[in-house]
């Protein structure tokens, strides 16, 4: 392997990237936009659940109950209705997700100390929001007696909950570390696979092969610029995540950089492998890249959806994809401050995956040349 030849290929590749500023802009802008959306716009948190109240009792006690819902911060009372039919209309048309019916005898029952019943209807379409809302309603029920008696009446059984590692339960903290893996997979694998496929499609690959360059040198040279782009994406994402969105980085930065580089090397090599397998059709290469790197990084890595919730066969499949290990590493380093003693297994898996893919790419390229 000659460094000079690798450098020449890398330089040529860089010039080609530079000539297509649009693709480069998208490659660098994608992480920023995604970070902004994940950081600011979306959250699994459940607030402002639209609620309607059918208060048949119309007493001060029932009004207190409604006020407690409103003040909890989780429910927004959008309307008071006075017919059961209205509840149907509101829920059918998505104008409300929760309907509370307070019966005629509510205050009487509360005063006499017997258990008053309150009807709650929840729109279960969005099962996640519905489940969490149910928990909030249970908590309101526990605290209601204290509210109306002004005395400190603690509930009989008081669940004291504490949350570790992410005390405010910000989904931002959970999502942004894993997002780095997704961004790197999407941008890097896609870009790499397309450019090499384009070289085949346009026939310039044959010219390259006729030069004294060896397969390993060709691949190394092709890898380098995309590795640089991917690395820039990562630095950008980490910097923005920590400074702008306040995601805690509790672990060691050096560890993060080293492990990310290993992952990146594997992803770039995989992009080259795809482009060789796709036999020079850009649309086929892109389709393979999406199915084999982007979707797994997004769905099978535990980035958003817990692996333990998946069906068993799918759980087994996740072990094939490097993104899985990388997401574990990222979440560990960011949120738990994990060190190499906890993460070495994932690191070894990433290194192995990278090495296998790299050698496969060299072998496949040899075969194609022959």
């Amino acid at each position, binding site marked *: 392997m000659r460094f000079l030849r690798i450098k020449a290929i890398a330089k040529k590749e860089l010039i080609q990237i530079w000539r297509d500023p649009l*693709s480069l802009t*998208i490659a660098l802008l*994608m992480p920023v*936009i995604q970070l902004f959306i*994940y950081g600011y*716009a*979306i*959250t*699994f*948190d*459940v*607030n*402002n659940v639209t609620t309607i109240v059918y208060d048949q009792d119309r007493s001060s006690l029932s009004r207190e109950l409604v006020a407690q819902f409103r003040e909890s911060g989780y429910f927004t009372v959008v309307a008071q209705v006075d017919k059961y039919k209205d509840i149907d209309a509101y*829920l059918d*048309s998505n104008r409300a997700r929760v309907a509370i019916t307070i019966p005629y005898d509510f205050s009487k029952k*509360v005063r006499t*100390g017997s*258990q*008053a*019943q309150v*009807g*709650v209807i929840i*729109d279960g*379409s969005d*099962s996640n*929001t519905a*489940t*969490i809302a*149910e928990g*909030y*309603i249970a908590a309101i*029920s*526990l605290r*209601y007696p204290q509210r109306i008696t002004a005395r400190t009446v603690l*509930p*009989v*059984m*008081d669940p*004291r*909950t*504490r*949350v*570790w*590692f*992410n005390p405010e339960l*910000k989904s931002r903290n*959970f999502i942004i570390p894993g997002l780095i893996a997704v961004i790197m997979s*999407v941008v890097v694998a*896609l870009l790499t696979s*397309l450019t090499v496929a384009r070289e085949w499609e346009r026939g310039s690959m044959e010219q390259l092969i006729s030069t004294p360059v060896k397969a390993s040198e060709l691949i190394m040279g092709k890898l380098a610029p995309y590795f640089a782009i991917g690395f820039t994406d990562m630095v950008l994402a980490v910097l923005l995540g920590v400074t702008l969105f306040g995601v805690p980085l509790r672990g060691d930065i050096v560890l993060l950089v080293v492990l990310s580089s290993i992952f990146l090397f594997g992803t770039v090599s995989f992009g080259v492998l795809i482009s060789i397998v796709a036999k020079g059709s850009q*649309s*086929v290469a892109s*389709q393979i890249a999406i*199915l084999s790197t982007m979707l797994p990084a997004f*769905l*099978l890595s535990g980035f958003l*959806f*817990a692996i333990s919730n998946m069906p068993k066969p*799918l759980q087994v499949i996740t072990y094939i994809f490097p993104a899985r290990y990388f997401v574990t590493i990222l979440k560990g380093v960011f949120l*738990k401050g994990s060190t190499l003693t906890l993460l070495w297994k994932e690191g070894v898996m990433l290194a192995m995956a990278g090495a296998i893919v790299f050698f496969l790419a060299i072998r496949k390229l040899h075969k194609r040349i022959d």
Partner: protein
Amino acid sequence: MNMRERITQLIVKEFIQTLRDRRRWMLLFGAPIIQLFLFGYVVTTDVNNISTALYDLDRSQESRELARRLEASGYFNVRYTPQFPGEIRDLIDRGEVLCAIQINRNFAKDLKKRIPTEIQVIVDGTDSNTAMVALSHVTKIITKYAGEYAVNTVSTVFSPPDFRTRVWYNPDLKSRNFNVPGVIASIIMITCIMLTSMAIVREREVGTMEQLMVTPIRPVELMLGKTIPFAIIGLLDMFVVTLAGVLWFGITIKGSPLLLLMGTSVYLLSILGIGLFISTILKTQQQSLLATMFFNMPAMLLSGFMFPIENMPAIFQYITYLNPLRYFLVIIRGIFLKGNGFEILWPQMAALFILGTVIITISSFRFRKRLG
């Protein structure tokens, strides 16, 4: 040749070109089906079998009853019963358990004397959503137990009101019923935008666009001939994916399939318009693919597919009004889950129609300019 014939010719050519390549079949129908299975199984927010540690210091009948209720709920799987407080810390650190519950000494005694007693619940918040759902389940179970305990013993203070909860539309609270329709809507968007934009750009990249331009075809005809095949393929894809979703995942369609077809048609109008628009600003397939991804990612996130719109900040809520997926999600979920009719869904349909017409008009102006 008149206009209709010319367009028909073009459509036939486009179909031959698209279906000639065997690998393209994979792209048209294989990929959407794979995506349906992946998303269908993975996109679940159901939380079951939460690995739990139970530190029972009381060892009374009451504390065992609480433990039994936690396990019987199906949400918690008590895998560890630590003996020392330090063990809880260790189990959570290593990720062995997600939730630890500590029942204090004198739990039963306090209950009998009606002295309020505390139950410690510790949750690993790394995955904020699972943590929230776990907390919600713990609270519900404890509240229910407390309520029943209060009824069975003589009550002196106010007992907490009993909330009788009923769940409509999706009584088992299965997230799949909510997510599969969303997945179908997203897949159609991803596939159709990519197909349309790449087909037109490829013609330009390979150079055959110029050959088409020297034929007597007019720009409008060219545009129609290029989009109609993908509208047909889009409808076909919708049919295949919906069928697979219904048969495999056992989702029922409560509403009218005809209304769904109507909704899909107006949805495809705007989707194809976007694909056409992307193709008018770009030169190479690589660019059009990146641009498609660049559009699809935010479009999926800012639609209500996985993250409720009402939790977003106001600016982002306004942005979602420009997103066709937002409207179609309401339509497809309304028809699948609630059996909504036209009288409820017409605003969404109208919005999609207006959005589609505007995008198509803008794109066709750009398309003509690029040709001229």
